[in-house]
């Protein structure tokens, strides 16, 4: 028996290389666990039929000594990342029957290493949501408490890792979609620097904000996956290989923007837990500095202008002509209205309408242009602050996982879930959520997350502080 509960990528690598077990045996252990828990939790939308064949290929590679860090490692993929020949739905009805015609760059990189793709995971439709309740295929339940959400939008990906259904998963993060569910389920979620990981083959939501990131059990594992998927790509002109300004530095000073906690709607328990995390960091020898980021409070409003604007443009491609769902109307215009009206879920329709509004004649200057200006201002404030402090920490979310159905009918309340995570997307800096304490709610111990942010392309600072914090 393989003890998958305590397995990490790092440990599995050693066991595979030492021939303690094969990639096939490892994959079988995960498939068995999935068969027990997935129907109830709804983390995987599909488990692939060729998992064991993939594992056999990996075993041959290992036997020949062609070993990369992720050879034979089983993983889950968010349903908005394309794998050639496999179905991809982005949690939407509108992509009914769509088969990807090419590999995303991250998939190609992982295939080259000989990973084992177990399946595709549930998500909020087109990554729009913070609870995975906006999936056309039903919500994913939190493995720690089935009456609660996993967070979102990468809720399925995070749940697969937490329920021991994969050793790691890939998600996408536009406003917190990797970090917020990682926080809700007590795992590590990394949103890398914008452009450090290619977006080629990731279904676009907000193109100036989207980035693919790993969900893992440890910071060490997040670093291993990040190193495998990062890098400039000729198919994504916004991808880059740039060096961070503080890459060689050992982090010493941590900034805490206490002023943003006041407006964050945090409970007393969550606030206390955050304070304990700060004390822990102090105990580890870091200098804690109270900092002010004057315009950071506008981040969420800026985000909910820029993102829907980009959404309304990006989702124009779903027209019932090229792929997916088609609902017949009386003429071509009616085909569009029906296909998009019925194919897109409620939240997606809402965001397309908001995006259409903020870009329309007469409102463009007041909303979109103003948001772009503020975005630059917020980014400049971060860059300047990083001359004084090495990393910045905040809570990942205002509180622990909420109940399924609790806020799904209040869009603005759902948007406020992202209040601490969006600034990193607005400014493009890397950020990571690590498990940091728990709160007791209704007799269940629910995890909270600590978010660490660093200057552009300084992921190594996140890894260093994160490892120390978790004692890795």
């Amino acid at each position, binding site marked *: 028996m393989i003890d998958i509960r305590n397995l990490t990528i790092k440990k599995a690598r050693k066991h595979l290389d030492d021939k303690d077990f094969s990639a096939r045996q490892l994959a079988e252990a995960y498939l068995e666990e999935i068969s027990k828990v997935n129907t109830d939790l709804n983390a995987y939308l599909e488990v692939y039929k060729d998992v064991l064949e993939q594992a056999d290929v990996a075993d041959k590679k290992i036997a020949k000594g062609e070993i990369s860090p992720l050879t034979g490692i089983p993983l889950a993929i968010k349903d908005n990342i394309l794998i050639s020949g496999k179905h991809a739905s982005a949690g939407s009805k509108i992509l009914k029957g769509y088969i990807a015609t090419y590999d995303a760059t991250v998939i190609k990189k992982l295939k080259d290493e000989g990973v084992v793709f177990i399946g595709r995971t549930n998500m909020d439709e087109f990554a729009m949501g913070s609870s995975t309740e906006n999936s056309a295929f039903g919500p994913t339940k939190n493995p720690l408490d089935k009456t609660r959400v996993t967070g979102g939008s990468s809720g399925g990906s995070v749940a697969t890792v937490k329920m021991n259904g994969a050793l790691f998963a890939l998600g996408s993060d536009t406003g917190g979609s990797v970090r917020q569910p990682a926080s809700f389920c007590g795992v590590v979620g990394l949103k890398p620097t914008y452009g450090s990981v290619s977006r080629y083959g990731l279904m676009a939501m907000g193109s100036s904000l989207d980035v693919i990131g790993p969900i893992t059990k440890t910071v060490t594992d997040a670093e291993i996956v990040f190193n495998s998927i990062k890098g400039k790509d000729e198919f994504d002109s916004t991808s880059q290989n740039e060096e961070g300004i503080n890459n060689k530095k050992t982090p010493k000073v941590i900034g805490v923007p206490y002023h943003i906690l006041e407006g964050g709607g945090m409970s007393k328990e969550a606030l206390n837990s955050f304070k304990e995390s700060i004390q822990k960091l102090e105990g580890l020898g870091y200098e804690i500095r109270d900092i002010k980021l004057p315009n950071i409070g506008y981040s969420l409003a800026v985000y909910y202008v820029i993102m829907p604007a980009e959404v*309304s443009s990006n989702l124009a491609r779903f027209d019932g*002509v090229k792929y997916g769902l088609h609902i017949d109307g009386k003429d071509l215009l009616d085909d569009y209205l029906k296909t998009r009206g019925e194919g897109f879920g409620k939240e997606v*329709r809402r965001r397309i*309408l908001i995006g259409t509004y903020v870009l329309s004649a007469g409102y463009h200057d007041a909303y979109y242009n103003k*948001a772009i200006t503020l975005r630059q201002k917020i980014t400049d404030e971060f860059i300047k602050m990083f001359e004084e402090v090495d990393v910045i920490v905040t809570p990942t979310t205002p509180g622990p996982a909420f109940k399924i159905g609790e806020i799904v009918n209040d869009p603005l309340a759902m948007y406020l879930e992202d209040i601490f995570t969006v600034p990193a997307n607005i400014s493009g800096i890397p950020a990571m959520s690590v498990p940091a304490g728990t709160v007791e709610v209704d007799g269940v111990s629910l995890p909270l997350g600590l978010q660490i942010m660093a200057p552009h392309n300084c992921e190594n600072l996140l890894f260093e502080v994160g490892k120390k914090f978790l004692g890795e």
Partner: protein
Amino acid sequence: MTLTKKDIQNLGSLARIGISEEEAEKLTPEIDSILGYVGQIKDAVGDVEKRVSAHRNVMREDIPTNEPRQYTEDVMSNAPSREGDYLKVKKIL
């Protein structure tokens, strides 16, 4: 903010999303309150010096990099309606 039901239906037609009377009724206050929230950015003061984005257009020679018909069948077989190698749509004139 004072959006009307008619505004919502107009946005729907601009975005090519069919919206029923009933849904427009529900969406009006929802979108109104979201726009009210994001409208706070209008209060932000001070301007920034406009910078040119760090991103540049990436150009390449216009040469096909794949074999003829390498992806044709894969791409076309995703289409809801086709005729040979053409996507089939209703007449527009």
